[in-house]
């Protein structure tokens, strides 16, 4: 069991084995994509595979895993071990659960874990998490508790000693809308995990070692040492910030204190709003995932996703809060809260790590559901995603309309119009929307849809950043707020609207915040923005202090005067 019993492998062989293990997990991901049934798996890669050591610590994860799956598998494994009790794991077992508090924070993500046996010993665990489109329930954005949100699968054997558990399968099949797809995905996930276990055993045979204990201990130890060294370089202190989400009935404040003490980070959400009876509560696992994701992105995006890297990071939040809700809080759209963690942590650290943070983006992710009946009487239901502008970065402008912190692509207009009785009239950048700054925030976009069907189309949406704009950092200005308009009139951002033939719905996506004072933006960059219509002549003068005459050329004397005044003003403020 102990590493002393193994022939120690040297650093070079360790590197080879580590590369191979990562490759095996990426191959599992590829196999899953190839065998899964659902489109979500195939196109959004909304899943991940991980490898846990015999002591339960996660030490390797497939490379394209989404942020919300960070660090949840060891929690799930612990709960599974507790549930199994003395009976323990047997070769060929696969356990399943989707309990939001034990997994990734909403019912749609199903976690499976199986042990890897080698030479009659359990040498580790393979985990797999995958998003399923439907998990039963009301599918209403108005869910008031978890029970309305669908089927909660407690820890169960979905496979016992190599035999599929027919009871569990029947329970699942009876409670979801498309059992072929959901069960097909689960079986593909199980097959990929079994193949992963087989490949790991083959690797052990190949290099002639009995287990992974030495490898996992080394990798975890080195990852942790690496992360601690990166944290150590950040000046000690407690850095605070808060961000205000629009919320449903009232604004919700997320407050954070990031404490750097030596080589550890403590992230605490004390002072954050309480949980709400709307499906935007972020369970502790989700809060921890996005918090760790943010620290990793700030310090070193290349650091492995494992328990070693995250060991020096602690995340705490008051019980019963929006970011650590108690059962049975509704959680389906937890991203509407979770997507605020990266900006709030980055703003806390902006003064101390100005070169490693970015201004707020026009997120959380926007979406609208569309339901209706085509003129040929067929029904449709479709989700349409939209992204606002990306926050400005310390060394560059924020790109226009880019998904962050999630990573969800848009639907091409031509595909959309082929499927739905809707015409998209406009999908255009909004001039002047980007938060002004030495580095400008990415522009938001305006999307206008016109209903063509004889019967009305129901739009349902609950989007953020309508009352509270994305913030600029370190002297950069805020980005623009979002708006929802029906036939040109502003409507509530979290509602439903039924549109008749010829009616239009317009989404104006929020833009990114700017970074550093705008008067420091190079004049040539401002002129380029004006030429392209990204910034108007008026904003060039008012926000950037660049005065352009009627012909579009720079009035250098006036520009110099305005910019000097701004610089002096900034100096005086100190």
């Amino acid at each position, binding site marked *: 069991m102990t590493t002393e019993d193994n022939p120690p492998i040297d650093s070079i062989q360790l590197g080879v084995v580590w590369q191979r293990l990562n490759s095996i997990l990426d191959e599992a991901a590829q196999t899953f994509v190839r065998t899964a049934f659902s489109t979500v798996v195939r196109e959004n890669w909304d899943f991940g595979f991980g490898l846990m050591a015999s002591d339960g610590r996660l030490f390797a994860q497939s490379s394209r895993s*989404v942020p919300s799956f960070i660090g949840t598998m060891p929690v799930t494994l612990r709960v599974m071990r507790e549930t199994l009790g003395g009976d323990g794991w047997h070769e060929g077992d696969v356990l399943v659960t989707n309990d939001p508090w034990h997994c990734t924070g909403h019912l749609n993500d199903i976690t499976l874990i199986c042990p890897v046996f080698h030479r009659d010993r359990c040498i580790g665990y393979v985990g797999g998490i995958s998003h399923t489109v439907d998990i039963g329930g009301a599918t209403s954005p108005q869910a008031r508790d978890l029970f309305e949100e669908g089927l909660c699968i407690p820890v169960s054997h979905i496979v016992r000693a190599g035999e599929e558990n027919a009871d569990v399968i029947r329970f699942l099949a009876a409670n979801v809308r498309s059992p072929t797809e959901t069960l097909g995905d689960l079986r593909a996930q199980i097959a990929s995990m079994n193949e992963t276990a087989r490949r790991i055993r083959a690797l052990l045979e190949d290099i002639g070692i009995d287990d992974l204990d030495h490898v996992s201990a080394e*990798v975890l130890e080195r990852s942790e040492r690496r992360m601690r060294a990166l944290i150590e370089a950040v000046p000690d202190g407690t850095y605070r910030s808060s961000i205000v989400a629009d919320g449903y009935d009232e604004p919700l404040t997320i407050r954070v204190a990031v404490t750097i003490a030596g080589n550890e980070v403590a992230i605490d959400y004390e002072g954050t709003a309480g949980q709400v009876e709307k499906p935007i509560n972020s369970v502790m696992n989700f809060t921890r995932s996005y918090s760790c994701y943010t620290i990793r992105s700030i310090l070193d995006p290349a650091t492995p996703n494992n328990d070693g890297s995250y060991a020096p990071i602690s995340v705490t939040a008051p019980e019963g809060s929006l970011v650590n809700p108690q059962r049975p809080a509704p959680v389906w759209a937890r991203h509407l809260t979770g997507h605020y963690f990266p900006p709030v942590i980055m703003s806390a650290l902006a003064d101390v790590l100005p070169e490693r943070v*970015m201004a707020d983006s026009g997120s959380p992710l926007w979406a609208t559901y569309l339901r209706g009946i085509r003129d040929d009487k067929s029904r449709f239901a479709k989700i349409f995603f939209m*992204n606002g502008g990306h926050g400005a970065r310390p060394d560059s402008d924020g790109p226009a309309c880019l998904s962050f912190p999630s990573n*969800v692509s848009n639907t091409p207009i*031509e595909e959309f119009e082929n499927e739905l009785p809707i*015409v998209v009239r406009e999908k255009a950048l909004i001039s002047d929307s980007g938060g002004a700054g030495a580095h400008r925030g990415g522009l938001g976009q305006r999307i206008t849809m016109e209903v063509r069907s004889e019967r009305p189309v129901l739009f349902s949406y609950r989007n953020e950043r309508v009352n509270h704009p994305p913030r600029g950092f370190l002297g950069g200005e805020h980005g623009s707020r979002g708006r929802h308009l029906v036939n040109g009139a502003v409507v509530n951002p979290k509602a439903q609207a039924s549109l008749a033939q010829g009616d239009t719905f317009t989404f104006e996506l929020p833009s990114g915040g700017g970074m550093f004072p705008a008067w420091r933006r190079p004049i040539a960059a401002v002129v380029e923005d004006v030429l392209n219509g990204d910034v108007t002549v008026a904003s060039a003068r008012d926000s950037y202090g660049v005065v352009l005459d009627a012909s579009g050329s720079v009035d250098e004397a006036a520009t110099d005067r305005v910019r000097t005044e701004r610089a002096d003003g900034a100096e005086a403020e100190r």
Partner: protein
Amino acid sequence: MSYRIGVDIGGTFTDLVLLRPEGTTVIHKLLTTPAAPERAILDGVNALLERAGVPVDAVSSIIHGTTLVANAIIERKGVPTALITTTGMRDVLEIGRELRYDTYDPFIAIPRPLVPRRHRFEVSERLDATGAVLEPLDEASVLAVFEAIREAGIDSVAVCLLHAYRNPVHEQRIAALARERGFGFTMSLSSDVMPEIREYERTSTTVANAYVKPIVDEYLVSLDEGLSRIGVRAPFNLMLSDGGTVDMAAAAEHPIRLVQSGPAGGVYAAQRWGSRSERGNLLVFDMGGTTAKACLIHDGEPSRTSDFEVAREYRFKQGSGLPLKVPVVEMLEIGCGGGSVAVIDGLGMIRVGPESAGAEPGPACYGAGGAAATVTDADLLLGYLSADNFLGGAMRLDVDAAREALRSAIAEPLGVDVVQAAWGVHEMANESMASAASVHALEKAVDVQRFSLFASGGAGPVHAAHIAQKLGIREVVCPLGAGVSSAFGFLTAPFAFEFSRSNPAPVHQTDFGQVRSHVADMEARARTLLQQAGVAPDAVLVEVTARMRYLGQGYEIVVTVPQDLLDAGDHDRLRQAFDAAYTERYGNLQDSAPEVVSWRVVVRSHPPVLPEPPAPEATAGGSSRPRPKGRRPVYFAATEGFVETDVHDRSGLQPGHVLTGPVVIEEAESTVVVPPGCEATVDRHRAIVIRIGNDHRPAADETGD
């Protein structure tokens, strides 16, 4: 007499191959002349003919591949271009798909569009998704845009209107208006360039076409003139990105199809070896100075795709470039070549690439001031490369510099000796290439262990056997003349052209009458292009495929549609064809209805019949044992250290010769490393075929001494 010439313009060298009527070849290499690439061709052709003693009028054809198009886009050296779109859509080109290519890095660079916002214009018009006109084209708005474009001093114009893949009427009217009103623009219409659904990808492709079209035109005109001047009367053809060949006029009409023109040639050289040696499944592996490229040939057919990307911001990250919807031979690019730099990463492990020492200063052993430890430095210290025989002895390698680089970058931080460090670098390079190939094979649903590894490029044959061992591949092939394999591959490619067109419809609603009319139209256009290149009308093959998916999916699979299915208009058989293709790729079927997204027609000639080289005497190898030109210590894992190893000169090997590993075989462009337990045979095409042994790794109980 029929002499054929293949010319490949690469970044550094222009390679030429002359194929004689009796099947033997003459090669010539000279430096590329980037400012006027045609100069190297003309000089090269003259030199090649002189060397071969062949009169210029005996040349029957010249086939050419070029990186001109790719480089113009990568280096942003295309012409100023304007874009015309439907009202409300001019920013589609900039908004793209809204996706980050790296989820964990918020600081990634996003590629700038080729046309800045101020040169993107909108005209008033609208089609619906069926292609019906919702709003007619407002010609006054078009003329106003033309004026603005002329005002901006722009000559090349891309037009991409919504749903033009269904109905080109408005795009065509815009082009006609430009002609009628005397605007001398070079026009690229999305309905001509690539009439495929998805506005961002189609716009990106159309814009890229417009961006390079005048450059390709100019290049081809001066090349044509130059060739006439030196007396070449033979037809001059170009190889497209998908391995098809077309004449100059067709290439000028569709310049974006040239974007991956050169590398496809190497794959065709491999395919030709495969077809003559009864190997249908090849993993074509080309490892050069900065990257390795891999392409799967399955059942004799190179893997193809229409989803291509150019000018990646981050070289090996999918999604970081500009998307091009053009048919290409599918190649996986891996950030690992001879010049790839090895470092100790944040976890204290060796990482190789993707940073490269490039050609200047290059690996430490080039002695040109490079201090970074590279794969080539490691290969030199392990004895795989010889200090005296690099590039045929043209360049002496500095062993001490290599040792010093590996000592400071790898050995010292890890606390191991320099040889272990070198082995670690070699091993990690192999491991990362094997991983990439393995994941790629899974993506393509093939079992790579049933493939032979076909290795080319300067570093390919050095690493191939060790990579094969990691992948469980049993056979490695190192062709002769790997240094000019692209140019040779051009000579083996058929004439071919592909057209495609989106026409989305569920299978059970497919209007076969309309499909047949679209297919007939595409076939006729492709036939015309081939006839124009001199292919006889009755000497062509026509292949029809459909890109299909389940309703609601975002990506398609390619399904072959037999002509009789099309003629019969059989919905059920189309469904069955989809089911079969889907099952092969994904192993299961869904409970959902499939649809056709687009139809594709490929018209191709039979591959050219190339003369076989004179049959080698059957006993040439059998009767004599080749004599090594020397011996040197070479490191192998299986021997746990250096062993004295025979070194052969490849030019001294004859078909039938058999060499047992460990052995090293040197040639001018590369070195073939045959590890212990492997056996190399020279086949009748003078390729070295290595049978990979089992015993690549010592068993566990043998290591613990």
